[in-house]
């Protein structure tokens, strides 16, 4: 075991893994974190805690991770390269590990021009692939990036993201391969809506032997409404929402659109699980909809979660 995290153990035991996501509050509202966490307890194997996602300032990811640990959940600490240089990145993973955090997801991070402080200066000392490599080195070689020895190395399960729907498509699997070569133990994908394209992506990954080296978890985000589907299709770069999903939501009563979105999510999970053996689990991102994560996971027949 590299980290002994629940997620690592669930995957090692050959179970179909389920991870969730929780966005920290825009303040120090501890109750909000606990409230959202309660909906995910026992529903997912590990919970991603976003790191100032969309470049909007929120409670520090590591702190929200610690709150989850205290509530008996396992966090997955998301870290972006936008806000920290190599000194802070290494320091933060040591601190996180000291607090009992065992999973980390390495990301470049959304550019600050999207966020609520667009005038800010970014860092990008490292990119996400170099961050993975740095953490692998800290864990396995027990040294800092500069080769100097650590006084206690972090036992961490290292994750990365992949977006099968960004361009150029053919390069996406290669780039995921670079992340795996750098040391990624698991990959969580961007939200999937275009199933044929995802199938093609998985096939390429399987053909290149990548799914043998690394656990691929498929990203699932339920569509809450026609409005959300249209917004994602139009305004979120690298997001691919096919017209058929929008039509299906339009086909039901407005009050029923959320339920229909959940049905679609469940069907997608089932299809992935039954027809894509290269995929080892799902990452359910019920954004600001944590209270409905259970319906999805339960509906897909993935409850109860294994105790390992």
């Amino acid at each position, binding site marked *: 075991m590299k980290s002994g995290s629940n997620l690592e153990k669930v995957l090692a035991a050959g179970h179909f893994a389920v991870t969730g996501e929780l966005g920290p509050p825009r303040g120090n509202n501890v109750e909000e974190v606990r409230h959202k966490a309660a909906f995910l307890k026992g529903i997912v194997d590990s919970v991603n805690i976003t790191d100032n996602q969309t470049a909007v300032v929120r409670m520090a990811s590591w702190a929200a991770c610690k709150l989850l640990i205290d509530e008996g959940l396992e966090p997955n600490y998301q870290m972006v*390269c*936008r806000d920290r240089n*190599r000194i802070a990145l290494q320091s933060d993973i040591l601190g996180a590990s000291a607090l009992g955090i065992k999973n980390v997801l390495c990301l*470049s*991070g*959304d*550019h600050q*021009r*999207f966020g609520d402080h667009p005038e800010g200066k*970014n860092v*990008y*000392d*490292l*990119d*996400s*692939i*170099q961050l993975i*490599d*740095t953490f692998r080195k800290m864990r396995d070689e027990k040294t800092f*990036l500069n080769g100097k020895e650590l006084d206690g190395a972090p036992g961490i399960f290292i994750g990365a*993201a*992949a*977006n099968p729907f*960004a*361009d*150029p498509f053919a*390069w996406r699997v*290669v*780039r995921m*391969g*670079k992340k795996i*070569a*750098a040391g990624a133990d698991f990959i969580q994908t*961007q939200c999937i809506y275009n199933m044929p394209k995802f199938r093609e992506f998985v096939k390429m990954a399987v053909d290149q032997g990548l799914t043998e080296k690394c656990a691929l978890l498929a990203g699932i985000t339920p569509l809450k409404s026609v409005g959300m589907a249209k917004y994602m299709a139009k305004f979120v*770069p*690298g997001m691919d929402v096919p017209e058929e999903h929008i039509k299906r939501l339009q086909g039901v009563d407005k009050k029923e659109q959320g339920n229909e979105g959940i049905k679609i999510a469940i069907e997608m999970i089932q299809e992935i699980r039954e027809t894509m053996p290269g995929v080892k689990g799902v990452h359910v991102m019920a954004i600001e909809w944590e209270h409905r994560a259970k319906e999805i996971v339960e509906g897909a027949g993935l409850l109860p979660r294994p105790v390992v």
Partner: protein
Amino acid sequence: MIVGDSKPLEEILEMIQGKEKVLVLGCRGCVTVCNVGGEKEVGILATLLRIARKKAGLAPSIEERTLERQCDPEYIEELAEVAEGYDAIISIACGVGPQFMSERFPKVPVYPGINTTFIGGALEHGVWGERCQSCGNCLVHNFGGLCPIARCSKSLMNGPCGGSANKKCEISPDVDCIWHLIVEKMDAMGRLKELERVWPVKNWITSRDGGPRKRVREDLKQ
């Protein structure tokens, strides 16, 4: 070349408020080429300042001059006899100009008349694009001749990130995703395999991160 943009006239007028005798100082270097700080632009700015001052009922004492370069002391020296006769000098060279002027003539207030924006080149008449961030360790040959440091919004060495869509960067449809172009270019050259390498972390010591830079050429020093 170093590319710049004129500052708004209002900002310049505010800078020189109360300064009677003013010199607008151009440069025949980069800023002449990018049409922002040469002799022609000196004339335009001086005329605009005169009109504004006249309107405000002030003496329009604005003089014009353009040096060969403002980044070389030998040309700045041409002003040795006259500089202190001005109440203000507006340098419309790149950011080097106002600093070299201030260093040479410490008694004279020097104001920047342009904003220095980037190191780049002309894409077409009237359009310039950024190409270099002066990181001090050029690697463009590894990326099909396209710089990921200056031209990727996140300076990724192992791009493109998940925000690349339709060859455009996630920050704006007006910004090319340079990593998309790098992948295409390397593919066209039959060199795509080279990009499968995991590029290690960059040494930023040679960049501005290593502190303000200075270059000494012993063979040229006198």
